[in-house]
């Protein structure tokens, strides 16, 4: 293969440099894009990670400062048939070891450095020897001691006497360290408290709230699907006088904010005797203009021929709707179902008004959570275990049916 060396013109050089610049810009651009995306994703995820971790903590662990994410408990070990608490301390040779408290109240002194008296250490007097000389610290004359740290010795000023603990290793009795017991760092292990979940379920009736929520959600979703499919079919396929006017008026009701209806609906529940019952969370909410709208839009797109063929066979509308339209409309139905599921599962202000009694048997999750969260004495770990229980089902459904959630947002934008 022979090539004639082409003289490099300015234009090819220019093009090459352009390409390189472009590539650079692309890489920087992509890196920047991913940086922003990851930063936002971290901000979105962190509260949930924190939630899951806190749900597994002990109550003391939730009040720790500085705050930590992972659930930790103090480590203990068995020594001569007894539980001993473990500490994480620096030994004389400078390494950090896991030690147990072997002896308390060892006579010790608080020693300070001669050149910088602010730096102090508590060390047992058995490892220190009076040199006989003195020094002046903060206007007071104090003795100078030769203090042994392992193989090294340092001259330090004795400020006052104190007591330390003698910490020893479980494996090697020669390894020891001294520290003031009260402030010694405890050895800790990551130790999730799974019992938080059983506690919240058993002690706080949370299973009942979960059951109630599931029941209400199933009925709201099922009821809405039924009425929306019926209405959507009528508005798309049956010709009758005033149909379009009724449709526009009904769809217009989407604009009515729920807050206007709270008071009269509550009065209605009072006169029907539905206050403090789960029924009040279901029956008013199975008639949904948005659902009817969604189903109608989908039904309109179904070809007319399918229906006409069935008509010729003598099938009636009811049968046509459930045998032909509904099986074809699975995407729209799933979209509506996910929307209603979230709505029913997470609704808060109406249950707050309508389930206002103290009887926790009527509670749905949102109310049980709010009641729990408002009790000052409750440990955050139990509250967070309850939060995990309340989000686990929506999250699972989301993972299984993500497409329909996104579809719902894309088609309607109604939350």
């Amino acid at each position, binding site marked *: 293969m022979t090539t004639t060396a082409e003289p490099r013109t300015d234009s090819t050089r220019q093009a090459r440099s352009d390409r390189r610049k472009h590539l650079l810009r692309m890489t920087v651009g992509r890196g920047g894009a991913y940086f922003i995306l990851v930063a936002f994703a971290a901000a979105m995820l962190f509260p949930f990670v924190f939630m899951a971790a806190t749900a597994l903590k002990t109550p003391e662990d939730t009040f720790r400062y500085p705050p930590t994410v992972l659930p930790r408990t103090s480590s203990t070990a068995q020594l001569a048939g007894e539980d001993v608490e473990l500490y994480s301390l620096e030994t004389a040779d400078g390494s950090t070891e896991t030690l147990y408290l072997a002896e308390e109240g060892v006579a010790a002194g608080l020693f300070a450095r001669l050149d910088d008296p602010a730096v102090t250490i508590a060390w047992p007097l058995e490892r220190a020897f009076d040199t006989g000389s003195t020094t002046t610290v903060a206007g007071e004359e104090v003795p100078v001691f030769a203090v042994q740290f392992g193989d090294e010795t340092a001259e330090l000023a004795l400020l006052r006497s104190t007591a330390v603990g003698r910490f020893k290793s479980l494996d090697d009795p020669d390894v020891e360290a001294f520290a003031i017991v009260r402030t010694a760092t405890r050895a800790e292990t990551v130790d999730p408290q799974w019992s938080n979940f059983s506690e919240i379920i058993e002690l706080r009736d949370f299973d009942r709230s979960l059951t109630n929520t599931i029941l209400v959600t199933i009925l709201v979703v099922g009821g809405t699907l039924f009425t929306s499919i019926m209405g959507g079919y009528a508005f798309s396929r049956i010709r009758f006088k005033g149909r379009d006017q009724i449709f526009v008026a009904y769809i217009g009701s989407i604009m009515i904010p729920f807050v206007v209806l709270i008071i009269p609906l509550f009065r209605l529940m009072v006169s029907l005797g539905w206050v403090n019952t789960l029924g009040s969370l279901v029956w008013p909410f199975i008639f949904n203009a948005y659902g009817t709208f969604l189903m109608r839009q989908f039904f309109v797109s179904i070809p007319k021929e399918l229906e006409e063929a069935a008509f010729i066979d003598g099938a009636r509308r009811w049968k046509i709707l459930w045998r032909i339209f509904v099986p074809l409309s699975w995407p729209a139905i799933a979209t509506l179902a996910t929307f209603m599921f979230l709505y029913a599962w997470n609704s808060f202000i109406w249950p707050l008004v309508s389930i206002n009694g103290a009887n926790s048997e009527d509670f749905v999750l949102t109310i049980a959570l709010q009641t729990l969260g408002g009790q000052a004495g409750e440990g955050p770990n139990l509250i967070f275990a309850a*939060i995990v229980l309340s989000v686990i089902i929506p999250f699972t459904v989301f993972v299984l049916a993500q497409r329909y959630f996104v579809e719902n947002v894309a088609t309607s934008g109604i939350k």
Partner: protein
Amino acid sequence: MTTTSIGSSDRTTGLPGWYRPILIWRVLVALMMAAGLIGVLLRRGIVLDGPLRWSLAVTLLMFLGGSLVAVIDTVRQRHLGRVTAFFIDFLLAVVFSFIAFNRMGMFTGLDAVGEAFNGNVAWIGIVVLGWFISGFTERGGTVNESLRNIARYTMAAGVAVLLLAMGLLPGLIEFGRRLFVADVIPIAILAAAAVLAARTMWSDSAARMFSTTAAEGETMDGLLFVAPNMLGFLAFMAGPLFVSLFISFTEWDGLTDARFIGFQNYIDLFSDDLFLRSLRNIVVFGAVAIPLAVLPAMLLAHLLNSKLPGMKFFRAVYFLPSIAGVVGVTLIWKQLFNSTVGFINYGILKVTDLFNSVFGSGFAAGEPQWISDDSIALISVIILFVWQQIGFNTVLFLAGMQGINPTLYEAADIDGAGPWKKFQKITVPMLKPTTVFVVATTTILALQLFNEPFILQSPSPPSGPGNSTLTPVVYLYQNAFQEFQIGYASAVAWALFILIFGVTLLYFRRSGDDGVLSS
């Protein structure tokens, strides 16, 4: 259910057997309506107040008129008679069944179901198993009829076991027993009669007798199909809406009689410092929170739209806050906002330390009391709201961007436009309808702010320290359900409604009729 007949030539000369009982029923219904009307006008039996009494009277009058038309046209065998008769019977059947079922505690019986359900919820697992099997048949692509049947039977068995475990049989017996509770019987009989009458008027035989044409039959079909929605709409939306409007013109504590005071509540609103404070709070909240919830969402959507790998993952992550319920999410943030052990103040401390060590400065990180300090309590609500809303708005924008014609970008590429130019000159203008929609929905949500301050401040009052998180809905809630100023609270509700409606109209006018209704 449509019934067609070929026309009057087909009319049968002999009257069907149901004709005479139906006619008697028709006359009875008309008499019932007349008696009810007189009763209401004379205030017998039911103690009702002003407008409620009048609206009931008007309803009864309409029913009476309808009944008379039905009687006359039934005798004359005209289609109008069939339609009016059918719908009167249908509505009576609904109303009487509703009353009967409500007396029997059927609507509130859910709580008992909940109790029974509670111990047996695990049986749903069988149904879910069946559902997974059926999903498996679809994914495989091969239509496996026997597997599909197995799935069906598994699901059915699961439902059956669940129902039996929950006590279906004792429940049915209980249902039967309640049916015979004395005061339900007359209403139940009326309901049954109305159902029977409606069924008769619906039948093919009635269609023939009244010479119903195909178009007329279709209208009956249509009205029947929209009936559940319409009845629900009237009972739980339109009705309450008008009741709410009426209540807003009264002074009412919910126990004693309401006193009509005209526009006084609305006039009082303008001189009510608390209400004005709530408006000010919500305006400040909106002015900060809406741009923060919209603009970054647009940027994120733009990045997600770039077809780089992993975008679906990010989209899912951003969506999570809108899946988790507001109560749980707010309780999580309440702990993060904790002034002593919360991660937010700890993060501020760490960032300040880093800043100080880099620049050698000596800033001190404070310990802001996010929830109990009146100068920043609203900021904590803003942070929470924005965090929850951003991902949802991102997905909305993303959907809008995916609707933009890609040839526009290709043309811009040929013209040598850079990415920023393309974003500025194509994406932003083409996205205008979406942007208007996102801003509108975010604004409407922001105006109805309630959950976040309520839960963040709990167990303290939701109005927050120094009323700093008092929003109109919080004010409404406090007035209606804590102070029992129900008339005044309704006026607050309507003021807010008017505000929201105005905002909605404004946005949709700007977007040039590209709103929900036209899509």
